[in-house]
């Protein structure tokens, strides 16, 4: 009887993975043509480049900054203040990404808050419609990613840090080590596994971004902020080029595996 109940999700999983591979099915008869197209059309290849750039913003910065913030929380704000800051920072992770896109679309617009602040601090000359600027739009999208993911990384890392034996820190302090020493010699090495988890989650997040970009910029200006997730959608559902979209989807999934695998390996080796 249980077999039946186990089989249900099992079949769902088969259907699930079957989908994924069968998604490539319709294009088999053109051979590798779609893949070649992806690599030949600069706009398509560009989306993958953009995805890599977003990995920096969505992954490296939140994880790096999250480490710093988490260690600050664990060192100087162990009480209520730290608790509040953890919850506050976590907020953006819980809301709909579409909403995050809309909120920041407005903040980064010409009359939005970002420009208002810049003007207030005397940087009025650099104000612009950030998401409409060819050079800045992608980085502006990156800032949205930091906003969404920083709290998640911080909370995850600070929870892990609170499990580190405090006597390690005490010993270090008796030896006169400062915050920076402690950070690089105790915190970071001991948290390798959690850092790996954070990187994995955020890299997948970065590579699979869709909602934020779709709402905030729709890939524009031009193709400056187009990412694979969005391009797949556009190719498949507005241009009806299912084969090409699927090829890009497969490449995206490959990319995820290729990037995630070394991170996971690194984790396994250290533990």
């Amino acid at each position, binding site marked *: 009887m*249980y*077999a039946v*109940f*186990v089989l249900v*999700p099992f079949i*769902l*999983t088969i*259907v*699930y*993975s079957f989908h*994924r591979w069968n*998604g490539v099915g319709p294009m088999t008869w053109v051979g590798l043509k779609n893949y070649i197209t992806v690599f030949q059309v600069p706009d398509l290849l560009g989306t993958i480049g953009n995805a890599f750039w977003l990995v920096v913003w969505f992954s490296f910065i939140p994880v790096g900054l999250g480490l710093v*913030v988490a260690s600050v929380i664990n*060192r*100087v*704000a162990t009480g209520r*203040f730290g608790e509040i*800051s*953890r919850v*506050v*920072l*976590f*907020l*953006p*992770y*819980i*809301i*709909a990404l*579409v*909403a995050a896109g*809309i*909120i*920041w679309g*407005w*903040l980064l617009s010409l*009359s*939005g*808050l970002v*420009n*208002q*602040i810049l003007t207030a601090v005397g940087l009025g000359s650099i104000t612009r419609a950030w998401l409409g600027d060819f050079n800045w739009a992608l980085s502006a999208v990156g800032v949205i990613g930091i*906003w969404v993911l*920083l709290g998640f990384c911080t*909370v*995850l890392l600070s929870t892990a840090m609170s499990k580190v034996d405090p006597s390690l820190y*005490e010993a270090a*302090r008796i030896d006169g080590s400062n915050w920076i020493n402690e950070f690089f010699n105790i915190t970071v090495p001991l948290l390798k596994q959690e850092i790996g*988890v954070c990187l994995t989650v955020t890299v*997948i997040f970065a590579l699979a971004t869709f*909602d934020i970009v779709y709402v905030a910029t729709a890939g524009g200006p031009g193709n400056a902020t187009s990412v694979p*997730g969005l391009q*797949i959608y556009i190719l*498949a*559902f507005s241009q009806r080029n*299912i084969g090409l979209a*699927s090829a890009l989807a497969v490449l*995206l*999934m490959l990319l*995820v595996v290729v990037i*995630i695998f070394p991170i996971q390996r690194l984790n396994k080796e250290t533990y």
Partner: protein
Amino acid sequence: MKIGRGEIFAGRALLLLLMTFTLLPFISIFLTALHPSGSVPGGLDWPTDPQWGNFVEAFKVANMSTLIVSSVRIVLMVVPIALVISTMAGFAIGMLRIPGSSLLLLLFVFGLTLPFQGIIIPIYTLERALHIYNTKFAIALPLIALYMPFSVFWMRAHFVNIPVEISEAARVDGATTWDLFRRIHLPLAQAPIASLGILMSIWTWNQFLLALVLVEDPNQRTMAGALGAFQGHYATNVPLLCAGTIIILVPTLLVFVLFQRQIIKALLQGAVKG
């Protein structure tokens, strides 16, 4: 432990700065939502004459009442079914260790790393073929499947940590596997099941891509999916757009504030074990 005053001050200042960075966007859209509909205020301008009516208007023009019904209906379809399946699967893999458990588990791990976009096209074509495209099942069915990797993993993690002795004792007393599950392990699993349910409700509410692709009528979508359509219509009417966004945010934020401990814990454990 002695920590310098300067360091405490600098640390707290950094935290305050980051909290401001996190909260300002919310404050900005809230203030903007109170400006007269159709105007273009500054990012943090104080509304001289707060237009609370914007919320009412956004509620009406976006058909929020229909939407809430439709979102709640999707949540009510997805969450219970997904919970039942994943609890049983987690029980079978984690507690009964049925043959092939590790293979099953591997399949689920693989599913965890899979981006939605990678499988959205086959889902679409399949739904067309099965004639469920554009129906109320269109979003619910694939969502249940997509939640499986995380939720099975999550439930397994719970069952794996339950001492085997409990089951063995019950077996001695003549319990069947079903008794074991129903009378002993299900009550013990209440907390993780509840957390998982909360998480899945939020995810369903926030689901965008599936709603966008699989349902043409914005009124049948999830809240987040509808917000996308709303943005399309009111992109230039910033105060109204902000009001609509806030209406959609409030339920998620409320749930989060009420259950923040469970939610944070659940998300973290899910991530670490994944």
